[in-house]
């Protein structure tokens, strides 16, 4: 437990409070900035995840062929699939790494928010034992728990964040999920697409809105990264969302003139 405090929790807690002190006492702004910093630090992992996901989609026809060929031999099926992944240089679990790395960040952030918004004398005294000797930290406490319409230590009673968490997570996932050729698989894929956003939406109903704010900002940053890496909205609006190449004005007019004459 001491290791958790020393290496993860206390640095995050003190960074959040110091950021709040610098950002005019706004804990909400501090959460937003910290989220962006965490996403930038995990950008290499995110890029690998996007590459893995894309490569897996390209491999789908070959994977389906192997599944058809070895449907009755599970052992051989596994071997052939692993062989295909190896030859393509893909780790099928590569898309999980960003999630796994962010998991302790979520736990530390939840604990930091609950400790930092110390509402009772006991909470404040407990907080004093986790603070570094930085003057900016001691001068920032106690923190304001209000940000916009939110009480950062309580769930959002207006449900706006709940909707934003679910919607932003759905958009982020849909952008990178190719539609399945088989209609039965498409239905499964749709269910999977909805499951995570619904689950996190439910979490947002129960956890402090400070944590939900982190999820919304994190998802939005993820969407922006995906947009620029993929060159567009991906599969968000359908099978192909890349714009058609623009036709040069002069050439089109020439073509019309030729047809008239």
């Amino acid at each position, binding site marked *: 437990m001491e290791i958790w405090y020393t290496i993860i929790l206390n640095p995050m807690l003190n960074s959040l409070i110091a950021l709040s002190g610098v950002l005019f006492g706004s804990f909400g702004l501090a959460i937003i900035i910290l989220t962006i910093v965490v996403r930038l630090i995990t950008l290499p992992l995110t890029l690998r995840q996007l590459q893995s996901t894309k490569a897996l989609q390209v491999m789908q026809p070959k994977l389906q062929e192997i599944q058809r060929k070895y449907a009755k031999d599970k052992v051989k099926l596994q071997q052939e699939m692993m062989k295909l992944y190896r030859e393509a240089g893909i780790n099928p679990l590569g898309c999980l790494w960003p999630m796994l790395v962010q998991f302790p960040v979520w736990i530390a952030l939840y604990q930091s928010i609950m400790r930092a918004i110390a509402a009772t*004398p*006991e909470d*404040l*005294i407990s907080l*004093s*034992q986790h*603070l570094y*000797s930085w*003057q900016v930290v*001691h*001068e920032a*406490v*106690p923190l304001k728990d209000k940000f916009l319409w939110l009480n950062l230590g309580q769930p959002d009673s207006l449900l706006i964040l709940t909707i934003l968490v679910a919607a932003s997570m759905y958009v982020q996932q849909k952008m990178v999920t190719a539609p399945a050729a088989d209609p039965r698989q498409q239905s499964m894929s749709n269910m999977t697409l909805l499951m995570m956003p619904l689950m996190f939406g439910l979490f947002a109903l129960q956890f402090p809105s400070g944590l939900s704010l982190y999820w919304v900002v994190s998802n939005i940053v993820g969407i922006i990264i995906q947009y620029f890496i993929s060159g567009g909205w991906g599969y968000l609006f359908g099978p192909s969302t890349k714009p058609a190449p623009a036709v040069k004005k002069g050439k089109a007019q020439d073509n019309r003139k030729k047809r008239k004459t």
Partner: protein
Amino acid sequence: MYVGTYLGKIYALNTTARLEEKDFPVGVKGEWIYPKQAGKNVGNIVGDVVIVNNALYFGDSKGIYALDATTGDLQWHFPTRGKVWAAPAVKDKVILASSFDGKLYALSSDEGKELWHFQVPAAIASPPVVWENNVLFGAFDGYLYCILEGKEKWKFKGENWFWACPLVSDGIAYAGCLDGKIYALKIETGDKLWEREIGDPIVSSPVLVDDFVVVASEIGNLYMINVHTSEIVNTISLKSQVMAPLYQKEGIVYVHAKNRYLYAVKIPEGEIIWKFHLAVKES
């Protein structure tokens, strides 16, 4: 007996009426509740109430109040930008109150008008204490401040917040700190006479019994420290968190612990002569 609650009510209780278990409030016995209206509360009241010349003063999460101690009627309210979790001090018709907005306020006792304030860069949870016109209080920036006539006289740096009210006696301030130390400082100059580490945060205000300063750590250990030698002469463990201020009378120190027991401890022997469970009677 006057009691403030975290839920934002002040109760004036007549001990005879309570012993007779009469319906509260018995107005003819001087009992009242503030705010009077059912369902209406002031902010959280954490510090003690103070009574001087039939006026009752207290702070809550919104400011400082003065009530008529006989009737419970509001005399004035002074709003602050931060919580007032510490009991105010009263000296020569001036109310001194510390706030989480980093200000020590000096207000006139009759009208609640601001006479002056002293600003520090961090929140103040420590109650102010007065010694011969010097006002001492601790803040979250780790300093114990001494103010004279509204100006800083000196400040002393601890290694964490000063939360407990300093004890002052014979020109010396005994200040417990959340860094787990108690400091003895000369009030005139701020010079440190000695410090004694007890290892755990000190939240509760210490008391003086003869030549011993008695201090409780947050985890419930009671220490008796010789004021001349700074040696710990005795220690007892109450095995329960102690955050409430200590009280002493005639060589007995009374400690209210988180386990809802009130302990009476003989000093300097450190013997618990009785303990009483302050449980709520369920009907």
